[in-house]
């Protein structure tokens, strides 16, 4: 039982991170129909930026964290501005191929500067952050990641529900022509989706880096997990992305704990296939409202 709870907590906190980074992916897809194949590399960029700031520049952790978030935000904005915007109006497949190219560029740059070895952050989480429930011990990093995950989730929920910019973003995702006719700055919305997606990806990159250490290949592969997550949750549902993330996270840790660590990456996909056979639009894919 203790083992089960331990796995449950680990799975939930990892899953929350998957869900959050998938949320960025879904935001880009919803507003501009672009599948971003460079998502994993955005995670890696965040993780390495944090590494540079903490170890090489020696900044305090909270400052490094904030600067990484800001830096990732700017990176996402710049990517949209420099690479995506000139392609507006072109066929979608070009844009998607462009993201594949961007993935290679980012990965190449990171490999060039940091090599393919495993890097680790200095130990910075206070040991007191760990929580002891009877025989179950939750390590500090999982407590921290759950906390960050939930905070971000609530913030984004409020942002999309109540802020004008959030409502504009949803309106563009809903009906682009109508949004244009009302003067919504659609290009600004695209840029903002990229910026937010990159920021959340960078944040997930840091936390995953704290958990597993950072390695270019591994982190960008984790980024690719957004695909099973979003397909499971439904490509166009932000809530679905979060829940899909949690399901994948739980599946992974339970497989790892009860069956075998080597099956960790296989079982989620197997379950994915089964779910898609029953619900082809994903668990929470939008069922078109047909009423016009």
């Amino acid at each position, binding site marked *: 039982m203790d083992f089960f709870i331990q796995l449950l907590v680990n799975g939930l906190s990892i899953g929350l991170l998957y869900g959050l980074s998938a949320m960025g992916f879904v935001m880009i897809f919803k507003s501009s129909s672009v599948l971003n194949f460079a998502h994993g590399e955005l995670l890696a960029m965040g993780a390495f930026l944090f590494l540079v700031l903490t170890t090489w520049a020696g900044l305090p952790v909270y400052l490094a964290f904030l600067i990484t978030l800001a830096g990732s935000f700017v990176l996402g904005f710049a990517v949209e501005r420099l690479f995506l915007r000139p392609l507006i*109006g072109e066929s979608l497949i070009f844009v998607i191929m462009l993201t594949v190219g961007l993935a290679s560029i980012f990965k190449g740059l990171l490999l060039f500067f940091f090599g393919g070895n495993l890097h680790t952050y200095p130990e910075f989480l206070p040991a007191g952050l760990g929580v002891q429930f009877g025989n179950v011990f939750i390590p500090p990093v999982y407590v921290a990641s759950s906390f960050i995950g939930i905070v971000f989730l609530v913030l984004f929920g409020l942002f999309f529900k109540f802020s*004008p910019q959030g*409502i*504009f973003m*949803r*309106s563009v995702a*809903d*009906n*682009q*022509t*109508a*949004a*244009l*006719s*009302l*003067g*919504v*700055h*659609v290009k600004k919305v695209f840029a903002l989706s990229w910026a937010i997606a990159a920021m959340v990806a960078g944040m997930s990159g840091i936390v995953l880096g704290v958990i597993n250490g950072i390695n270019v290949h591994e982190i960008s592969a984790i980024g690719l997990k957004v695909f099973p997550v979003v397909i499971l949750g439904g490509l166009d549902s932000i809530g679905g992305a979060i829940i899909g993330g949690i399901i994948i996270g739980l599946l992974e840790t339970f497989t790892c704990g009860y069956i075998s660590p080597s099956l960790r990456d296989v079982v989620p996909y197997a379950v994915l296939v089964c779910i898609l056979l029953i619900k082809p639009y994903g668990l929470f894919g*939008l069922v078109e*409202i047909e*009423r*016009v």
Partner: protein
Amino acid sequence: MTEHGNGIFLQLNNISVVYSDVIQVLKGVSLSVEKHRIVSLLGSNGAGKTTTLKAISGLLKPENGKVTDGSISFDGAVIQNSSPEEITRKGIIQVLEGRQPFKYLTIEENLKVGTATRWTRPYKKDLDMVYDYFPALIKRRKSLAGYCSGGELQMLVMGRALMAHPRLLLLDEPSLGLAPLVVREIFRIIRRINEEQETTIILVEQNANMALQIAHYGYVMENGKIVMEGEARSLRENPDVKEFYLGVGAGGKTRTYKDIKSYRRRKRWL
């Protein structure tokens, strides 16, 4: 009513519109709209009415269309081929054909999007103003637009446009697919908006009868050209308009298109 001498607000000067560099839809359309008036644009399907509106509002661009010739000026500024973001901020808002709500947003969120051109300013008063024109929306304000009826949606999209305080409102077939009573209600409200908000309105309609009742002035389009224009009252009396758009034949009885000799139309209108 008809003798407002307010000067020209919007002027289309001999514009041509081409889609995808090859398909010419408008072939030299000129029209002018005076301030605070309702101008109606009539014509059969494919005549170029919607394209004319999109040329004004800048929404041709996403459809790969372009004003290739002529000029459009609004309140003294040249606006042809400007982006919709710029044009909406000058005060021209188009209500698209076929009601295009944001289906997954609530009615009230839909209305809030209408403030996009001026989103830093408070909008509470505007919400009240819209609910005053369209009381039917109040009790639906928390429900998703996707589940509302056609009449409610038409009110919603017009209310959403009003939130932007438009100086020129372009309405594309507001009566499309609505029950006669609802149509009458909508037209009454259009008239009220024009009178109370002093909004200039261009009204594209198939329902020529209704449109000419509330409009001050009218244009008739055919094949990408303006073929007739005049005060709404005189258009209503015009035998050709009666025959083709109001469905009343010369002898006062309805006639089918089959009875009309095509050369007659060509001779009179070109």
